[in-house]
């Protein structure tokens, strides 16, 4: 029988069926951060339990740490950071803390350190764990109670998901990136359209993406509600997994980590890559996006009262007028960072737009490389100079920073941001903050222009 890649991965990790209909699955590797793990460790303590296999876990500091300087910016974040370090040292768990060259946003660190190879099952107390699907590995986010469960048993209780295939075929136009592909997919399938599903991406426009682009796509698949996102592991995935700190230690190649030809999916979507334009989000849900040369949506006659109310609410929060051209929207700030778009490839793409140009007067522009290692690599390539000369604030420390504003990088009420992140929720980057999601190159274009701008016109000017 033809199997989907998802089914192969679940089958390979199934420990046993449970009487109530769940199964136990084996977690090869588990990642923790400082804000969703403390209560899991205290749960272990209360129950008098040990960590089942300490060497299969990694803890990273990324969510609350400051990025202007290494020292914690307040006592509360200091407590979270010290708490994780203490829990790890007590239980013998690897800890990549501040000052460690391997530190950074967990989903940037893990591939960089060679800790993901095709065929693995990875869990993490963070929803963007879907990122690892780019390697043909099954990664998914879990809550704190499940973090405790993995620590104590190396397994999770699991229910098989339904499967969805998203096929993106054709050639991308100039200036269109992996970020635009996934924003298009979110727009088509809808936020929550993949709740209860594992999504497998296929098609020529996916296969021609490099690993960074594939990670961007799998990363943001959680904005569809997908609990898992997968791509066939091809040579590029194996090559990328090789030659990194852990890669010689790991090998899961017991079968082909790709979907069988003729595998059946519960739902299938087809998207024509040629029809995708560079997108920006205009609203407060990641599926509310329009092409950069488009306009803010207007109420139409076929809209239900509920849809109208939702549109009104989003427009009010975002301070936008229905029908206005999106390129006229002025920005206050530009942010390049996050597990979606802060890899070296993303920094290069933004730098190529910034080179020889200046950030518009009054725009506060920040770039936070995804990991310490990425930052050092970028500095070795001279990218930091390009950003600095353009007027960007190049941060010396790595972390999530203004992606979720849990450190001291908090946007102000009403502040409008061009952002390379993944969520434009109300209040995400600060209470009342207005986020427009887009690719890193588009953030750079907006920073230079002082308003949302079409990166394709920049390319032309460059000649």
């Amino acid at each position, binding site marked *: 029988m033809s199997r989907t890649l998802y089914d192969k991965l679940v089958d390979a990790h199934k420990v046993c069926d449970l009487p109530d209909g769940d199964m136990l699955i084996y977690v*090869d590797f588990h990642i923790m951060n400082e804000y969703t793990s403390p209560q899991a460790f205290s749960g272990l303590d209360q129950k008098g339990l040990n960590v089942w296999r300490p060497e*299969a876990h990694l803890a990273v500091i990324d969510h609350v740490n400051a990025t202007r300087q290494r020292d914690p910016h307040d006592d509360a974040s200091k407590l979270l950071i010290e708490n994780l370090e203490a829990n790890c040292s007590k239980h013998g768990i690897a800890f990549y803390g501040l000052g460690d060259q391997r530190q950074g946003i967990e989903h940037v660190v893990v591939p960089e350190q060679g800790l993901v190879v095709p065929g693995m099952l990875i869990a993490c107390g963070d929803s963007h764990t879907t990122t690892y699907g780019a390697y043909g590995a099954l990664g998914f986010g879990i809550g704190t109670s499940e973090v405790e469960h993995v620590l104590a048993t190396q397994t999770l209780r699991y229910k098989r998901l339904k499967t969805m295939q998203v096929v993106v075929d054709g050639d991308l136009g100039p200036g269109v990136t992996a970020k635009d592909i996934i924003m298009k997919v979110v727009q088509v399938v809808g936020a*929550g359209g993949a709740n209860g599903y594992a999504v497998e991406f296929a098609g020529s426009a996916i296969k021609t993406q490099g690993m960074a682009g594939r990670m961007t796509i799998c990363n943001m698949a959680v904005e569809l509600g997908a609990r898992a996102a997968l791509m066939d592991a091809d040579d590029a995935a194996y090559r990328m997994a090789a030659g990194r700190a852990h890669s010689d230690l790991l090998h899961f190649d017991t079968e082909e980590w790709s979907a069988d030809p003729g595998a059946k999916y519960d739902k299938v979507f087809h998207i024509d890559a040629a029809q995708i334009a560079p997108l920006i989000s205009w609203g407060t849900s990641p599926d509310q996006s329009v092409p950069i040369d488009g306009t803010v949506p207007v109420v139409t006659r076929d809209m239900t009262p509920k849809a109208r109310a939702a549109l009104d609410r989003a427009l009010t929060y975002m301070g936008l007028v229905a029908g206005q051209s999106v390129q006229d929207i002025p920005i206050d700030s530009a942010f390049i960072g996050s597990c979606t778009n802060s890899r070296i490839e993303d920094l290069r793409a933004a730098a190529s737009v910034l080179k020889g140009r200046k950030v518009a007067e009054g725009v506060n522009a920040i770039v936070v490389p995804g990991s310490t290692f990425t930052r050092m690599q970028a500095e070795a390539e001279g990218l930091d100079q390009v950003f600095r000369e353009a007027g960007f604030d190049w941060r010396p420390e790595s972390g999530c920073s203004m992606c979720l504003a849990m450190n001291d990088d908090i946007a102000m009420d009403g502040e409008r941001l061009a952002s390379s992140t993944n969520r434009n929720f109300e209040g995400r980057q600060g209470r009342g903050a207005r986020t427009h999601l887009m690719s890193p190159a588009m953030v750079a274009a907006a920073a230079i222009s002082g308003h949302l701008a079409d990166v394709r016109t920049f390319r032309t000017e460059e000649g």
Partner: protein
Amino acid sequence: MPKTIKGHAAPLPLANVDTDVIMPKRFLITITREGLADGTFADLRFDDAGAPRPDFILNQTPWNKATILIVGDNFGCGSSREHAVWGMAQLGFTAAIGTGFAGIFYDNARKNGLALPIVTPEVRDQLMTLAADPDGGEFCINIETRTITASNITVPFQIDGATQNALIRGGDDTLDTLEYAETIRAFEAGLTDKMRVRVIK
């Protein structure tokens, strides 16, 4: 034991209510599970000065005593923070009824005994209307029979067997799973050396 959840319901018709809205990040800087009631829906409940917003449904009588929410599509989307569920439980909620929930939120709810009955869009709209009626009376969710009774109607809802069982039985998944320790060890014995992750410290 038939497990039923009774209480007053409040309508929260917004779609895509994400975990940042349920529990804003400034309340996440904590190493305990406690003290999250005030943070729950904080930006909807309170204004910048910390005063209750009179136009928000949970600040109005009789909905201020609601323990059940009728919610819009895709409730609980966004981050994995279990703090969202802890906070809802601490604020006194025992159930949220909707058409579909984000996966991690759904699993987190199960671990904490917060029931999430799934109904059709039509039924949800019907329940939303009943909940919006100040004299609507109590809702009763019967986990065993998978039905919701409100006013004079009784409607079915969906729940998977394992979650239903967990809600009725209570218990602790971690301790229960450790009963399978031998089976887990047997599975591990079948892994090759290179399939056992050892993170370099």
